[in-house]
């Protein structure tokens, strides 16, 4: 049986339309029925908040996101090479350096702070005015916030590049312990990963851990035109001075002993004790 005669163009268009609709319907069916996890996007991906965003944009987006971050002062510790000194401003006036590294402060999440670097080894007399934007917070247990600040450890290479007129962007991230690098470190050491200019620094940090602060070093001098100063100081956000809390000193005999147990001789230098509920531990 022959199909009734129709104009050829209309028939072809109708066929194409039906095929397109059919493929879309089957794709939707597959998407609904498929239990396969969606793949991580690679390529053709446009990140909503790129790492090259101007200061403040990422912090503002974070304040609109999840979690109790608004109004929280996150402890931060600034360290630099050698005799480098840091100072933060109050109402546009930079405070004198404390002379006792590191500089610790509590910074609001989402705000951008301008700070000053002086006494750079080999470049005494030069000044830098970087910015720091805290974009996330840590959740230390009670009373440990001052002992575990976010370490902002700047290296001499960063300062040299900035003094030569380049823009250095450092994204500090909280490392994922399951993929930790097996290298021994200290709070003063800094492990840095360099990426080329075409990569998104925030995206790379997001893959490695939780980005928590962004430092942009490049500004060499504040503006002389006074109406620009509020913009230079990014609105004079408030910060709190802080000091790193030292560890609580523990006495030598700190093995947790349960009441009623007898400490074996080997563990206690040959002396046997018997603890009861009356004995303080």
């Amino acid at each position, binding site marked *: 049986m022959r199909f009734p005669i129709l104009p050829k163009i209309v028939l072809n268009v109708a066929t194409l339309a039906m095929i397109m609709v059919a493929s879309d319907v089957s794709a939707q069916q597959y998407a609904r029925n498929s*239990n396969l996890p969606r793949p991580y996007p690679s390529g053709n991906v446009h990140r909503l908040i790129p790492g090259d965003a101007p200061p403040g944009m990422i912090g503002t987006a974070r304040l609109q*996101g999840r979690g*109790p971050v608004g109004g929280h002062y996150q402890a931060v510790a600034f360290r630099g090479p050698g005799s480098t000194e840091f100072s933060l401003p109050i109402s546009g006036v930079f405070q004198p350096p404390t002379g006792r590294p590191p500089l610790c402060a509590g910074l609001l999440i989402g705000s951008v702070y301008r700070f000053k670097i002086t006494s750079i080894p080999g470049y005494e007399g030069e000044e830098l005015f970087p910015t720091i934007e805290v974009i996330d917070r840590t959740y230390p247990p009670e009373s*440990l916030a001052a002992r575990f600040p976010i370490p902002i450890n700047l290296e001499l*290479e960063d300062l040299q590049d900035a003094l030569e007129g380049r823009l250095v962007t450092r994204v500090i*991230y*909280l490392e994922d312990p399951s993929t930790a690098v097996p290298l021994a470190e200290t709070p003063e050491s800094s492990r*840095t990963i360099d990426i080329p200019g075409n990569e998104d620094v925030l995206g790379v940090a997001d893959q*490695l851990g939780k980005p928590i602060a962004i430092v942009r070093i490049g500004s060499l001098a504040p503006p002389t035109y006074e109406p620009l100063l509020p913009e230079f100081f990014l609105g004079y956000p408030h910060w709190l001075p802080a000091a790193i809390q030292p560890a609580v000193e523990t006495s030598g005999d700190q093995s947790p002993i349960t009441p009623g147990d007898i400490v074996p001789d080997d563990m206690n230098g040959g002396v046997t004790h018997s603890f009861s509920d009356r004995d303080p531990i």
Partner: protein
Amino acid sequence: MRRLSIHLPTFACAFLAITGCGTSRMFVMPTRAVVEQPTPTSEGPTPTAGAVVSPVVNTRAGTVAAPATSSIVRVQYESVSDDACQATAPDASVNESCVSCQPASPMQGCPTPGCRGCQGCVVQPFGYANASPYYFNPNLLDPNEFICDGGDNAPAARAKAGDQIIGVDLEDTVVRYTTEAGDIHVQPSNKVCLYAPRFAAVRKVVGAEGGELAVGAIAMDRPQGPVRADLVQPGLALSGREPLGRGTAVRGPDAVRARDRSVPVELVIVPEVAEDVLAILGNLTYLNGGLIRDAEKPWISKAAIAAITWSIDEQVAVTVNDLAPATLTRDLDAEEMYVYDFPDAGRLRICKMADKSDALPGDTVTFMIRVDNVGDSSVDNVVITDNLVTRLEYVADTQKSSVKTDFETEANDGQSLRLTWKLAGPLKVGEGATIEFKCLVR
């Protein structure tokens, strides 16, 4: 000019085939859904701590916690809840009910935060501020800021023939012992967590070349990659992160070829296969429409053989190459029955403690592992194993124990060490052993 002629029946069939109309909707590819494997117990719904090593189903590598809709009740080792096991963790809620949870990376958000923030559900991370607005930290704790050691993460540790313990992954601390009756038990310790966040940085330097119209990044004269690292790092074109392979390999049917008699086996493969086949068997067109398709005949024949196997009472039998298993008949005469009267089994309690609850990178932490025989008979062949995580580095020659032990170390997958202590003698009722060692927090 040729006219285009279409054969209507052919066109209609093609249309139906493409759109799927008029055909069965059971078109789903059998996918390996993330279904939690139950752990059968020897008797009773609730396992007692230190139960007999019974046929267990090997959990698949990479499985996450059971979804909320799963009707399979997870049965696991009962964790010791004695008061003696008060670990110096900063917050016990980190450890509570999270024995086998995967800590979620902060990059991933879960629409329904469960298990106190430890649920490892996979959510598409895209962009920094695009995470699910429903995810937040209800307990004000970030698991990534803690280093934990102890407990037993999935897959569960268990004893194998030949005095081996398998399933001891990074972070696990278990003790294996043998009772007087000859039963081998594996008991995990409690989990001890230290607050020890570590930070690193990613740097990008951008400059402009003067005198040219094109502005771009200048050439770097430093090597690309992590600087001042004595490890060979991969390239920086990060398009995806390879997850660390830590899954226990699943033993396939080949593992049971050597067994040709029905004896208690350590790994029962049949129930596992059944779980996977259900997705296929449930979609047979025979069940849907009463028709048998040629493509489904192998599955039906497999199910038929399995039905024969399952119908044998009180026997564990295995099919090899689709051959029906041999049945074993036994005759028990009352006059020939032998009754072995063992005393109640010995049981070890293992506790792990740390002398600090927080540590900066570079600090040294002292761990103590304490095992006590709280059962009713002595135990022998006591082996304590502690698999350190990457960020804990064992300080050499700092271990000491209260009893004579044979101590050895071996490298593990996390660039750290797996510590093993083998007690020389048995532990009688009421006796115990205490082990101390120091670790450097990297």
